[in-house]
């Protein structure tokens, strides 16, 4: 019995954090946030060289053959550095391709295809969005599509309840969110062909939500680390603020909320890897748990920083906004909890 990250997984996370320490240092994130393409490309290249695209592709298909637990370890590191990356889209594509046994896995690993992700309408349809499918042709628009920059293909949710692989559409309009590091688009389809249609399985949705939870885990951990460090430096009333019981308890409450979330995410990922029936339930609950914990930590860590936390000077807001966006991605906490309830037959 061993409930812990393996040596390899720790190594994976450490080396990735090493890469991100430079390629996604705060000054790089600042550049990316103001649209510096060179900085964005440099980070993208660094992560490609690291081999993230191949992570979840079976070795037989030229990948690393790793699983959901490895993926959340990676996503946590990305969140910790507030690093934009197409990894989430790629990991979800790998999961879907593996489930539907297609021959796109090799191309995905080699970088031959790079997929964007347009799943929003699986969870929320409005503003006339939605992708209709007729004779395997896709038409309509998807809101808040992810990782469309530089994508050759896109995985998009159709109104037929299935997820379609298609060539990335040309009609892209930026939808600017509070998080300027990650770019979202409105994607307009006009007859692009669906080269693959797979069921939007509960496992796939659960895995997608789990990745978001892991991203928030990393971002929230970063905010706690920064708050504790700031509290050890900042002097007020003749003492470091970290010696005030109120500040100590704020930090303790953040840690007490976050730590179980880490274990829950590991457990959910392992359950998905082993096909444990509880896996999707745990993954949905992990998304909801981290959305709530993240909201609390984002606010509390900012309060520990006082006025500095509100300014752009320390850049704390990049993590605050990342957590804020993650809360809404792939469905609200309430939707994730309701999904968990349905999986257990608690709700119709």
């Amino acid at each position: 019995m061993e409930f812990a990250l393996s040596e390899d997984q720790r190594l994976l996370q450490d080396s990735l954090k090493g890469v991100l320490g430079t390629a996604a240092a705060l000054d790089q994130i600042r550049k990316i946030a103001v649209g510096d393409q060179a900085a964005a490309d440099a980070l993208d290249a660094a992560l490609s060289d690291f081999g993230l695209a191949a992570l979840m592709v079976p070795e037989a298909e030229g990948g690393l053959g790793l699983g959901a637990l490895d993926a959340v370890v990676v996503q946590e590191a990305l969140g910790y550095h507030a690093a934009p990356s197409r990894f989430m889209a790629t990991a979800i594509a790998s999961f879907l391709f593996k489930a539907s046994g297609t021959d796109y896995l090799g191309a995905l690993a080699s970088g031959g295809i790079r997929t964007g992700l347009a799943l929003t309408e699986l969870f929320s349809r409005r503003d006339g969005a939605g992708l209709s499918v007729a004779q395997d042709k896709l038409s309509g628009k998807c809101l808040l599509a992810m990782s469309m920059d530089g994508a050759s293909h896109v995985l998009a949710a159709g109104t037929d309840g299935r997820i379609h692989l298609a060539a990335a559409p040309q009609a892209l309009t930026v939808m600017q969110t509070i998080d300027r590091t990650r770019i979202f688009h409105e994607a307009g389809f006009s007859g692009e062909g669906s080269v693959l249609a797979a069921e939007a399985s509960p496992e796939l949705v659960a895995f997608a939500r789990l990745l978001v939870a892991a991203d928030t885990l990393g971002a929230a951990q970063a905010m706690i680390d920064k708050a504790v460090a700031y509290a050890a430096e900042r002097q007020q009333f003749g003492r470091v603020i970290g010696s005030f019981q109120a500040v100590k308890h704020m930090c303790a409450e953040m840690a007490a909320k976050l730590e179980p979330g880490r274990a829950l995410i590991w457990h959910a990922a392992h359950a998905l890897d082993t096909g444990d029936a509880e896996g999707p339930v745990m993954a949905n609950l992990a998304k909801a748990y981290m959305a709530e914990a993240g909201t609390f930590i984002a606010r509390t860590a900012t309060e520990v920083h006082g006025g500095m936390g509100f300014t752009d000077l320390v850049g704390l807001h990049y993590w605050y906004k990342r957590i804020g966006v993650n809360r809404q991605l792939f469905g609200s906490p309430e939707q994730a909890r309701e999904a968990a309830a349905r999986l257990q037959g608690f709700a119709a």
Partner: protein
Amino acid sequence: MKLDLDPEYEAFRAEVSETLAKNRHLAPTSEDKGYKNAKRIAWQKLLIEHGLAARTIPKAYGGYGGAPDILKARIIAEEFARSRVPGPMAGQGISMLVPTLLELGTEAQKQAYIRPTIEGEMIWCQGYSEPGAGSDLAALRTSAVEDGDDYVINGSKIWTSTAKQADMIFCLVRTDPTAKKHEGITYITFPMTTPGIEIRPLVDMTGTANFNEVFFTDVRVPKSGVIFEANKGWQVANATLTHERGMLGDPNATKARFLELVTLMKTESVNGQCLMENPLLRDRLMKLQAEVYAMQANGLRITTNRLKGEPAGLAGLIVKLNGCDLNHEIARLAIDALGELGILYEEGEHLRADGSWQWRYMYDLGLIIGGGTAQIQKNIIAERGLGMPREPKLAKA
């Protein structure tokens, strides 16, 4: 308990509303931008003339010269809100400096500053907080060294809004570094055109520069700018700080935001369901409405205390803590209700309410921190409101 007003006041309300109706064509519009816009200044002067601005400022200093009357002040505010006619000018000069001058300024200072300030011809900014002195304001280190009839100022200030537009600054500086921290501070005013002043916009998490940093390098200013006395600045500042605290957490502003949220939930639909039909969102909305009603009623209680000249006690001490948090929570529910589209922030087809919910969700967090963090507020409530012991003195390390 009596919530309606005496006939005298209802008559006053009618009079105000008539005045506004009669003159609204003279009011500035969205075209009339900027601080010294002629039309806005003319409008301000007209409002003063009718006792709708600077109402209690003596005529001698350019005010209307009316007697203080909290109810009439409230009626005026309500009528401006109801009629949507542009209200009087605000700003730290009018809300904080002028009351201070009236209380502690010399006749010369009153003559020189009050009229142009209330008429909008003279803009002020405030120099209190410093990077090293946030919650612990009295720890400020910006130094003012005597040199003949002048002080020479070195240091920096932060959280200074309107620094770029301001003609003048009112500022706290340390004139006696040897005295106890509250006793070596002086409240001084001087022109922002004085050589040696550098202004750096302070971008915050909302992405805009709502505030500035101001740097002083050998800034030479005349002692005549001191308000009241040298080394008495802490007492001078506290008179106006209380004003500032009062400005945060206004329950009527909170109610207005709540009503926007109600409209949002009535009009937005997701997956073909109106947001108001979602029992989880509706229950959260009702939770917030209870707090909105409660803070409004709490506000009425405070107004009554002020009318009677009584201290508002706990009812007053909690306003900043509860009010700012409630605003933040209203914005949070609005964002959650909008779901995926709640994260949008910039111009675009799908943006709701110009992204103002996200802006408020961030800016309100700034207000939770600013003007005394939530932790400071809780200390105040416990110590002043509940009579609990102050933080005990520490042993010298």
